[in-house]
């Protein structure tokens, strides 16, 4: 720790406390609300008085919410797998093989990631209906490739370029073909990058709302963001805030845990390239 005047030290401490309050209070308050029962929810409290899990029990009582979680997991796993497979082969070509039009393809892929989602909504709707995938998890997984694929291709291409060429040249000397190189040489070296992009693709798929809202129709096909947005209670006008907060906490805590555990790797993935500019 460097020399710092008492005033500067106090200022820094205050800034850190404010930062923590600002970042964590809403989640803390959601947890607090989720453990309130009945009318207790309508009294403002800053501290927990009793821990009641009634809202969580009610949330999972019908099985609909559990089903939504399962749906989200399935869609996310499909998206991550497909993005990784397609992204890895593409990154191999874009990062390692010099061919005409390579830059153009990279720019086109980047341009796709800038599409406003709404701009493809009606076209995507007819595509999904045309393929018979409306109101199915397959349809959602296909649609999500719109955002996860360009992102995966970019990060994996950046990463593959940084690997030493010598390893690959040695393999070529030994007579390995492109597929062998990809599977036997790159795949083992690429795990850190694949985990990072896979994680980010998972988060994107887990959080997506617009497509999930528009391309599914029935409760049993809903993903968690849509389930939370549409959660209503017994009566039309009284929103079940306790249950909504219980649902929010349930889908958020695993994600927060993932982000905290993989923090360094995520930051590296998200900032890949940006700081070099």
């Amino acid at each position, binding site marked *: 720790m460097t020399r710092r005047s008492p005033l500067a030290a106090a200022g*820094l*401490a205050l800034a*850190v406390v404010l*930062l*923590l309050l*600002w*970042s*964590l209070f*809403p*989640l803390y*308050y959601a947890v607090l609300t989720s453990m309130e029962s009945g009318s207790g929810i*309508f009294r403002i409290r*800053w501290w927990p008085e009793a821990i009641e899990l009634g809202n969580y029990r009610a949330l999972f009582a019908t099985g609909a919410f559990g089903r939504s979680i399962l749906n989200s997991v399935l869609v996310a796993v499909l998206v991550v797998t497909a993005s990784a497979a*397609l*992204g890895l*082969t593409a990154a191999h*070509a*874009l990062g390692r*093989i*010099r*061919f005409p039009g390579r830059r153009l393809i990279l720019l086109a*892929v980047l341009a796709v*990631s*800038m*599409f*406003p989602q*709404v*701009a*493809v*909504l*009606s*076209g995507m709707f*007819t*595509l999904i209906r045309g393929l018979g995938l409306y109101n199915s998890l397959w349809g959602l997984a296909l649609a999500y*490739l*719109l955002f996860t*694929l360009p992102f995966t291709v*970019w990060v994996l291409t*950046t990463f593959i370029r940084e690997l030493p060429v010598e390893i690959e040249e040695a393999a*070529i000397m030994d007579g390995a073909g492109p597929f062998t190189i*990809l599977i036997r040489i790159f795949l083992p070296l690429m795990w850190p990058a694949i985990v990072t992009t896979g994680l980010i693709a998972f988060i*994107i798929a887990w*959080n997506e*709302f*617009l497509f999930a809202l*528009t391309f599914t129709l029935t409760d049993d096909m809903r993903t968690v963001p849509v389930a*939370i*947005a549409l959660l209503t209670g017994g009566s039309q006008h009284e929103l079940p*805030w306790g249950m909504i907060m219980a649902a929010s906490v349930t*889908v*958020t805590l695993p994600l927060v845990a993932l*982000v905290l555990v993989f*923090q360094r790797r995520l*930051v590296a993935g*998200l*900032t890949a*390239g*940006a*700081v*070099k500019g």
Partner: protein
Amino acid sequence: MSATTGAGGRGSTRTAAVFLSPMMAVLALVAVWPLARTIWFGFTDASLTAPGDYGLVGFANYLEAYDGAWYGILADPTWWRALANTLIFAAASVTLETVLGIAMALVLNAEFRGRGWVRAAVLVPWAIPTVVSAKMWAWMLHDQFGIVNAGLMALGLIDRPVAWLADATTALPAVILVDVWKTTPFVALLMLAALQTVPRDCYEAARVDGIPAWKVFVFITLPLIRPALAVAVVFRLLDALRVFDLVYVMTGNAEATMTLSVHARQQLVQFQDMGYGSAASTLLFLVVGLVTILWLAVLRPDRSAVAGQREGAGA
């Protein structure tokens, strides 16, 4: 075969094609084709209930004179309101996120005990799904039972509860606040990464020379983090211009906060007017494209810097 291209060589263009075509085919299917269809539908009177059955109407969805009056999106005050909301939302949220993001990064870059934990903690808002943040804040901003009103009243800042999301004057600022809360960590993260590339010697030299902190920031730090800043701003701007989830979940289709994305989806899904809605979507695409081109022309951030973090903020 040159050393820099690895397996590259004349013969491997074929290999590249084999490796690339699956990804290209999928992107053509989920991006190019739907976009082309959307633009096409914008010139038709298609309806969502029977998308196959439509006729061409030219530019009527955009602007049409009929019986001395103007019709179409460009004559629709709701669309102009949505455009204004979107631009206000984007300008305000990106400005605030940038300023707060830099401030947050400066704090996180200082040395203090437990810094690792604090860095992890500020990431929490970013990790929370947008729909969940929207709900959490809608509850905190609740007019009768919200803790924001209770807190402000306890501090004596307001004397009666404010209906933050229902009142047309406070709804847009409230939505902006939540967006700033959620995405500032992303900007801070990029800024922190950039700050860490600033050589320590610069600061040492400045301290030895007794240069005031603000001057060090303006003349040393800021120029050095500028490229990363430009990248962060472009991405945040693009995300802000197409904002949907947050606004839709917090205030639904309310006009006070309606953005271009919410407007387009309302036409498309709620009113089932696929032609008109597609035209609105196309306009949003053009607005985003225009702002991107303008921004790139003004700032010219290094293109290679645009790599990794594309989806990071929006997710």
